């Protein structure tokens, strides 16, 4: 039984085919990178998998069950967590209270393993992810936190949810090199802990360092898949990215 298997996924928006019959598989514990130029359907694919969009046709098999078309919250509770490209914190709540919301989810209740006050727990998670516990940062409203922290907050949410399959949607965008360098080890740590990860990314250099496999999308179609090394050599990838054949 495959862990995650996507079959002939298709989604159109008023005549524009955003995702065109994409199929791929992800093994448990693997890190799949999805790359492609702007408008190639990466984020749509993520939305289709995580239930934020309903596919026109096709299947999303997760642990042998077709989850295509289920509500996003339901899919989240099945163990697929995601982050957003545009950060989506709860601006009016303090940073640590942002994590209280996922801690209310049925999944966390069912999984158990978390004891004690939600606040303490939230602070623990934030500390792990790089919020200095003794500073005022975790207590500040999310509206005044800098971008880097908000990205971490996104990550913290999927950690709080104890998701087993995590989909990062352009996690690295807008981050400095130093910030990327501090986040990458955390992703490796997640892999070590047995999580499966799908990363949609533009920053190829950083992605290729940690990805096991990479899939390339162009205009809604899958044009290549393979190990990072193979992908780098593919001429069609270069064409898709740079618009010239080399």
């Amino acid at each position: 039984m495959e862990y995650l298997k996507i079959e002939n996924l298709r989604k159109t928006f008023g005549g524009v085919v955003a995702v065109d019959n994409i199929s791929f598989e992800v093994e448990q514990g693997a890190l799949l990178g999805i790359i492609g130029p702007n408008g190639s359907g990466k984020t749509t694919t993520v939305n289709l998998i995580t239930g934020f969009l309903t596919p026109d046709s096709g299947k999303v098999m997760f642990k042998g069950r077709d989850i295509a078309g289920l509500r996003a919250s339901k899919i989240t509770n099945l163990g697929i967590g995601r982050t957003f490209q545009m950060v989506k914190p709860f601006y009016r709540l303090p940073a640590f209270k942002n994590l209280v919301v996922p801690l209310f989810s049925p999944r966390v209740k069912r999984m158990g393993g978390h004891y004690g006050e939600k606040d303490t727990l939230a602070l623990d998670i934030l500390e792990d992810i790089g919020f200095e516990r003794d500073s005022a940062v975790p207590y500040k409203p999310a509206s005044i936190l800098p971008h880097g922290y908000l990205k971490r907050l996104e990550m913290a949410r999927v950690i709080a949810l104890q998701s087993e399959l995590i989909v990062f949607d352009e996690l690295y965008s807008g981050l400095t090199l130093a910030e990327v360098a501090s986040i990458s080890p955390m992703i490796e740590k997640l892999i070590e802990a047995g999580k499966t990860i799908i990363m949609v990314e533009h920053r190829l250099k950083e992605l290729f360092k940690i990805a096991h496999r990479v899939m390339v999308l162009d205009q809604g179609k899958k044009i290549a898949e393979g190990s990072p090394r193979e992908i780098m050599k593919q001429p069609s990838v270069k064409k898709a990215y740079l618009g010239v054949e080399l």
Partner: protein
Amino acid sequence: MLLSVLVYGFINSVILAMVALGFSITFGISRVANFSHGGFYILGGIFTWYGLIKLGMPYFLSAGLSIIIIGALGALMYKVILIRLRGLELSEVIATLSLGIVILELLRGLGVFGYEFRNPVFMDGSVDILGVGVGIQRIIIVCAGALLLILLHFFVHHTKMGLAFRGVAQQEHTALSVGINPDLVSMLSLAMGSVMCALSAVLILPLGVISVDEGYDILIKALAVCIIGGLESTLGVLVAAFIIGYIEVLTSMYISSALTSVVPLACMLGILLVRPSGIFGKSKEIEERV
């Protein structure tokens, strides 16, 4: 019977479409939901009435002037009030709604009630269409409605101004970067919506009377049509107007005239349950920007 349903349903639908068009155009371009629509509508009617009856102006002059005044009022409303609230949807709604109430209740307070507030029809008499007697005013409305739609289509698709309008409607920031002033376009869109509103008032009000309560009714009707059709889609408004228009006439003819206003609203709820964004609206459900 069936023929009369056909004819009167058509007229009813055109009237609804004209009432709703002003609202939908403004919203489609500038995302401003002009809740003072009903107020403008009645104000347009009362200005025409005042010029015609009290000042003794010719009909077309008084009507033309009131349309211009209402258009200017729409622009002024943007310039003075809405420009401070851009992007705050709720505040825009509250501001325009309260302006509409101010206009309507002020008219009521100044004595706009009773039976004398009535614009005469353009042309008296009636003709037979498919064997059904129809007043000439209604036929004028249908013709004017069709003409208006054609002009509107031409304006939006074949003029520079229309291009700018579509640009702002699609992506305000991009439009800004290619030298379109979104504030100006928004202001013009409000003026245009208001002109449309006053125009429909001038055309339609001779069929009824100018009363303050009519103003609230018109707002509700316009909203219902726009919601069913999808707020920003002109085609949607047209289709929705025909759906509601015919449902109203059918209800009144075959079920009960008392239910004429309930059934369309119930339809609206039903449609929303199936298609939350209206028939032609872009999906407003939870989803990412593609």
